[in-house]
């Protein structure tokens, strides 16, 4: 019973998803009230799930059926993703209006994709991991292509799907290699078995690269990133917002868990590999982002770049006895700050898109006069993305760069720093439009739930930026279990 209650949040989401689907089918007439009711229920179930996580989310010693762990690391990611889903749901109210008549099941799928992430981050068994990963992929494909009457949305879904199944197949291949060599699916047993096995030494590396294709796809690491700009641009904007944090966090969680628990002995190999990927990812993401004229595409490339910075935390991980810069906690702290920053920025994008029907950066001209709150919040989110102190984004960067300096990976830190400066250029381009350029001055209407999403994100960006202590503690404790597996 105890172990089941540890998974109460998942059950709540599961029941919520089914309830919403049933309700959507039973309630035939598509009308505004229906959407409001279903959305409220979706938010309520997400909140319930989060509440259950806080109440019952205890660290249990043994994984459920040996498959799903409920450790601090998993709890952290579950909490993070539930908060993210809540914010996305708040900002998606009435987004679908005028896009599609099928507006009920959209929110049900949001609950299911969240459930999938909850399962992914707890998986400690390759089979469970693969199933959860596929569940996550399938639900995301549906959400991306949800506006099926619109060509761009369908194109986005097709592209995401094709890249996705390829990445999954590669990942499965990697898993089968590991299983073939070690004869076990349990992550904790793979490490010792690899050590004993004669062929383990030279099969582990290809397996590692194949696994990385799967994980890297979700995180949008270069060179597994090609899907992301088109998918980000074509998907319904709330889905884009979700993609930029939810699956990304899931991918990073499994990357850390699998590499650190199962492939610990090959740390020098994957450290070098990830260091290279990190540098290429941030540089390429930032350089291409410079040239984007559509804000969703720009955010897609910027999100690729951020994945590069985050990866620095894994590359530079240290045992962390002497200091609190363990690298791994940097990843988590960065993710927390990034979640609120990015979802806040996307909430503004959604608001502008709903009001003026455009995602061109040039159409942000004069936003400060149309809606000072949105423009004011947006500049804070952009400054946080640059990493200006006082915002959460700075704290995240501080911890990953700190880890790099501590490990004396100066080149990596230098590349990261130079990239931050490059990124300032395109983020400030949006500020330039909003504040410096004259534009239409008519006020725009924004739903109150979306305003709440913006305000909550804004407040959290400042809290993490100005009083980061509790967030540092949470992040540091959450990675402790991984750290102890390795050192």
């Amino acid at each position, binding site marked *: 019973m105890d172990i089941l209650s540890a998974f109460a949040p998942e059950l709540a989401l599961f029941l919520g998803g089914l309830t919403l689907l049933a309700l959507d089918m039973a309630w035939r007439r598509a009308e505004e009230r229906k959407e409001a009711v279903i959305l409220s229920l979706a938010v309520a179930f997400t909140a319930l799930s989060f509440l259950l996580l806080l109440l019952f989310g205890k660290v249990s010693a043994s994984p459920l059926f040996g498959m799903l762990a409920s450790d601090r690391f998993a709890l952290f990611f579950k909490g993070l993703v539930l908060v993210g889903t809540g914010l996305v749901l708040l900002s998606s109210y009435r987004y679908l209006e005028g896009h599609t008549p099928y507006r009920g099941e959209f929110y049900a799928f949001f609950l299911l994709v969240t459930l999938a992430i909850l399962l992914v981050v707890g998986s400690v068994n390759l089979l469970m991991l693969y199933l959860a990963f596929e569940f996550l992929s399938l639900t995301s494909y549906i959400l991306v292509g949800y506006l099926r009457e619109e060509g761009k949305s369908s194109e986005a879904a097709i592209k995401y799907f094709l890249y996705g199944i390829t990445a999954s197949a590669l990942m499965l291949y990697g898993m089968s290699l590991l299983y073939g060599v070690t004869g076990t699916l349990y992550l904790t047993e793979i490490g010792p078995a690899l050590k004993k096995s004669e062929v383990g030494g030279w099969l582990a590396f290809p397996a590692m690269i194949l696994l990385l294709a799967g994980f890297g796809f979700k995180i949008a690491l270069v060179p597994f990133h090609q899907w992301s700009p088109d998918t980000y641009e074509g998907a319904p904007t709330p889905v884009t917002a979700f993609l930029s944090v939810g699956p990304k966090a899931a991918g990073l969680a499994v990357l850390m868990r699998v590499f650190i628990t199962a492939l610990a002995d090959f740390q020098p190999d994957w450290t070098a590999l990830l260091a290279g990927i990190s540098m290429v990812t941030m540089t390429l993401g930032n350089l291409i982002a410079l040239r984007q004229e559509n804000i969703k595409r720009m955010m897609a490339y910027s999100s690729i770049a951020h994945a590069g910075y985050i990866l620095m935390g894994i590359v530079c991980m240290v045992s962390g006895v002497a*200091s*609190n*810069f363990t690298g791994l906690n940097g990843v988590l702290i960065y993710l927390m700050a990034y979640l609120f920053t990015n979802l806040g920025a996307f909430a503004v994008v959604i608001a502008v898109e709903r009001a003026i029907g455009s995602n061109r950066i040039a159409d942000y001209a004069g936003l*400060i006069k149309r809606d000072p709150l949105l423009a004011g919040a947006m*500049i804070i989110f952009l*400054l946080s993305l*640059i990493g*200006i*102190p*006082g915002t959460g984004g*700075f704290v995240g960067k*501080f911890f990953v*760069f*700190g880890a790099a*300096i*501590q490990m004396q990976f*100066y080149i990596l*830190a*230098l590349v990261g*720093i130079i990239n*931050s*400066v490059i990124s*300032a*250029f395109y983020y*400030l381009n949006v*500020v*330039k439009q909003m*504040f*410096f350029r004259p534009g239409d001055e008519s006020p725009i209407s924004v739903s109150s739930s979306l305003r709440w999403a913006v305000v909550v994100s804004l407040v959290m960006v400042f809290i993490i930026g100005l009083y*980061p*202590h509790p967030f*540092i*503690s949470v992040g*540091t404790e959450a990675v402790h279990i991984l750290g102890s597996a390795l050192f």
Partner: protein
Amino acid sequence: MEFPILSAITFIPALGALIILFFPKERVNLIRWFAIAVSLIPLALSTYLWIAYNQSEGGIQFVERYRWIPAINVWYHVGVDGISVPMLFLTSLLSTLGYFYSAYTIHERVKEYYFLFLLLQTGMNGVFVALDFVLFYVFWEIGLVPMYLLIGVWGGKYREYAAIKFFLYTLAGSVFMLLAILGIYFTTGSFDILKAAEVHPFADNFTLASLAFWAFFVAFAIKVPSFPFHTWLPDAHTEAPTAGSVILAGILLKLGCYGLLRIVLPIFPEPFRFYAPIVAILGLISIVYGAFVCMAQWDLKRLIAYSSVAHMGYVVLGIAAAAASLNFNHPSFKESAAIALNGATMQMFNHGIITGGLFFLVGMIYERAHTRDLQVFGGLGAKLPYYYAVVMITGLASLGLPGLAGFWGEFLVFRGAFHIIPYIAAFGVIGVVATAGYILWKVVQFMFLGPFNEEKWGYLTDMEAFEKVTMWPLLLFMVGFGLYPAPLLNIINTATTALMGKL
């Protein structure tokens, strides 16, 4: 508990900014006078601070220290010494005058304008009081954003270009500083600036020490700005609104100099001693090159902007001379170094007063004539006698005429530097001559002397009451500290002698 005077000076402007957010934007006069009223509080407090600072005791005073981020040993740690106190006063004074002047000249987006300006003031004050590296860095970067927006929204024709250039240059400099700060943390285990000055991190590893030294130096040299990192400055100064230029020249440039004095010299004396000739030559180039570039300018504001490069060169030269003195093991060199540092710090304060004033004066003529082209003026002296007189005094103070404030900084820098780095100092004197050249020839002659174009400039009026009120305090300090520099020099001297004593 004592009254937290430094936190009050630092955060009252930000508090005022937050309150302004709740004012309706149509009530422009309320916003203007509220901002001015708010800024009078830090002005009063920093005046009090100057009087209350115990000069016989010296050292860091009015310390406040609270845990901020215990997980990584970051403290909210503020305090002031004889260098910070005049700088805080300067910031408060120029900010108040800037708000006052803007009340009459800024008519667009007034609410945003004052909000950003007050925020900027908090950022600048914070840098002068912070004694923890993270706190220092936070304030350092926070000031960047309001200035970027002030230039970009209220600036001149090429404001977008100037704003982004300013932002990227400063950001690029400071991010390297961030890496060096982290490096210091991992060697000393704390972010405490004073502790780092005692421990001298990387003392056993010259390569790392050099890297950290240059990381800090470049960050500060960009802000100073020293040749060859100065190219953002003419653009930013020329495009910024008048009060923005005043703050840029008056205070933001001092942040860089202050960083050299507070961080680079005390924490990295060894690499600084080694690289002092390079730094001194950069200072020399700034002085001479800056002055000659001024000669070639026809845009009055650009001319004043480049003159800042030259004047800040004296500061860099003074500090480099102090670092170079560590090469010589004789008490007389320590003494000369302290004199050079006194000169550098006085130059920081006086340049704020003088060039701040010059930028106000440029703004005043531009408001009337809508041009800053020196070639189209001439003979204004008879038409605008009051303005002419004020420009003369300020200009003469700028070229370092004895009896006016500008003299002391240059004089003491040269007095110190001649003993330590005589050849470099000797070349520096060229700059002094050139300064006289461009102030008298370019500014005074082209604007005020010669024939007057009655047809074109007949409508010009002399200074109005609010413009006079803006200039009076500055003139008072120019003449006051020119004739009797002791109050300024004494308090600075407590800090510089202590600084040299520890190296």
